[in-house]
């Protein structure tokens, strides 16, 4: 059984986002593996380490330019066996899913994070399943292999749903799929450069969406402190200034 984890290369979650020329200003940004994808990788490694699961290998794929390679190599340092980089800038969900399909069609289980922490599109996993014609389960929070099928559970309103599915399958995973992302060990860091990182030419496809503009959230207003004794003033402010009651 072969597992593929799709990795997004996203700005560190503490980055102060700046927009210039209607694009993300990448100056000084530290790039990381999209946190949900990193959890997917952790679960993939756990599955591989249990010999009963008969996982032959864990591969990772990312759509991005050469600048994304440090992020990809971190996944190799964590323990992925091989990596693919599809050589183009990911521009929208359909475009990205189409590129990923070049690699994903050869795998039994394809994992993607439920969303990326930068654009939060929540679309790539579903589109990818459709393009490669595989089963698909979204918002998966646990994943186990049971012989030739897999058992996953998903959070639903007020409870949990357990689903069995045949392979191949694309799973979009969310928090809960693994406890913590793994920290690469020194040996893994040292080996990462010796593992294969294949660069694949992008396929020609068009975007389905176009970003018209970005807007920064409005700055928060100044906090007003009201004395605990002064309830009338509080009610007045909530009614007439904040207009929430």
């Amino acid at each position: 059984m072969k597992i593929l984890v799709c990795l997004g290369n996203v700005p560190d979650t503490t980055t102060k986002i700046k927009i210039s020329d209607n694009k993300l200003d990448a100056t000084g940004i530290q790039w990381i593996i999209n946190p949900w994808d990193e959890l997917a990788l952790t679960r993939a490694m756990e599955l591989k380490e249990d010999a009963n699961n008969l996982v032959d290998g864990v591969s990772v794929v990312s759509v991005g330019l050469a600048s994304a390679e440090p992020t990809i190599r971190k996944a190799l340092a964590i323990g992925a066996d091989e990596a693919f980089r599809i050589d183009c800038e990911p521009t929208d969900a359909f475009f990205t899913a189409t590129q990923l399909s070049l690699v994903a069609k050869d795998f039994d289980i394809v994992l993607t994070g439920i969303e990326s922490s930068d654009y939060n599109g929540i679309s790539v996993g579903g589109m990818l399943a459709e393009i490669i014609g595989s089963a698909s389960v979204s918002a998966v929070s646990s994943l186990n292999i049971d012989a030739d099928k897999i058992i996953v559970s998903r959070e639903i309103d007020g409870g949990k749903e357990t689903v069995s599915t045949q392979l191949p399958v694309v799973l979009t995973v969310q928090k809960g799929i693994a406890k913590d992302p793994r920290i690469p060990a020194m040996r893994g860091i040292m080996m990462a450069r010796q593992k294969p990182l294949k660069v694949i030419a992008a396929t020609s496809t068009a975007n389905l969406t176009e970003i018209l503009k970005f807007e920064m959230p409005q700055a928060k207003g100044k906090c007003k402190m009201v004395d605990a004794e002064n309830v009338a003033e509080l009610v007045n402010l909530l009614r007439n200034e904040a207009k929430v009651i």
Partner: protein
Amino acid sequence: MNFEFTEEQLMIRDAARDYVQREAIKDVLERDEKSEFPAKHVKALGELGFLGMMADPKYGGGGMDTVSYVLAMEEISKVDASLGVIMSVNNSLVVWGLQKYGNDFQKDKYLPALCDGRQIGAFLLSEPEAGSDASHQHTTAEDKGDYYLINGTKNWITNANSASVYLVVAQTHPEKKHKGINAFIVDKNSPGISLGPHENKMGMRSSDTHSVMFTDVKVPKENRIGDDGFGFTFAMRVLEGGRIGIASQALGIAGGAMERAIAYSKERKSFGTEISNHQAIAFKLADMAVKIENARNLCLKAAWLKDQHKPFGIFSAMAKQYAADIAMEVTTEAVQIHGGYGYVKEYHVERLMREAKLTQIYEGTSEVQKIIISRDLLHD
């Protein structure tokens, strides 16, 4: 000149940061309060490869360079300087000393377990009357033909209780003075070794420090490191490299204090605004940043020289003296910025200040570093 780090160096820095920010931070205050050894963190750091970072991979080491080591030590010590010193002693004194000067038998026997954290090591040089003055060893190692017999007391030994492997420096030929000194690998469980009480220290309280008494401890001949009389040179060479570790630890302590001071100054308000808007506070932060950047550059230069196999002893002395002294200054100012909150334990900066003080004292005081530096300047 190239100030860029490699991808691997950055990955190691981030791995060290991720570990301590995620795990060691959780119990650092409690361990400081209770003087509790961070056994589970040491084990985890061993598994990640941080305890034998620079050792040859054929002995289970990480095969990384000294620059990576500086970056890792800095990140770990920002959160937990006790963990930093445990790591520094193991990496730069014990593992490096054995790899550089041990024979194949000694390396094969001891290095693998020391590199992956199954065992840790301790370096036994200081004595009640021989700290900075390391050439006057009162501990004796009498040559008895096929073994040595060690007698004496070692003081201030980091990892004394937790270590399995001791590197012990002792006098074999008193008439030859420092040229009669030897260094030995000694199993901590050897008959005749006993430990003094756990030292109740001002800082670095989570590292275990004891005096160690040797009474007729038999050490096989094969456990001597290098030729007869090599011990003093061994200790001095090892300490040259050790200074980079402690300098980086001091750098981390200072960096941890500055990060906390910046965060606090942006939250705390006085006179109607965040205190970071007061120039008195902002300038303190600027001073901290300059000192830390200077210390980092000194640490990295010493590390880089060591990696290039060039003489680095003067630079490691400069790095150690400067980083330790600015760690004391920066942590003191970080407490000042925190005001009353800085004086209580939950805000961490008073702990960092207590930890900083030791970096000016151990592995060669700041004054000893100045002796090393000035002798080099004045040497004809």
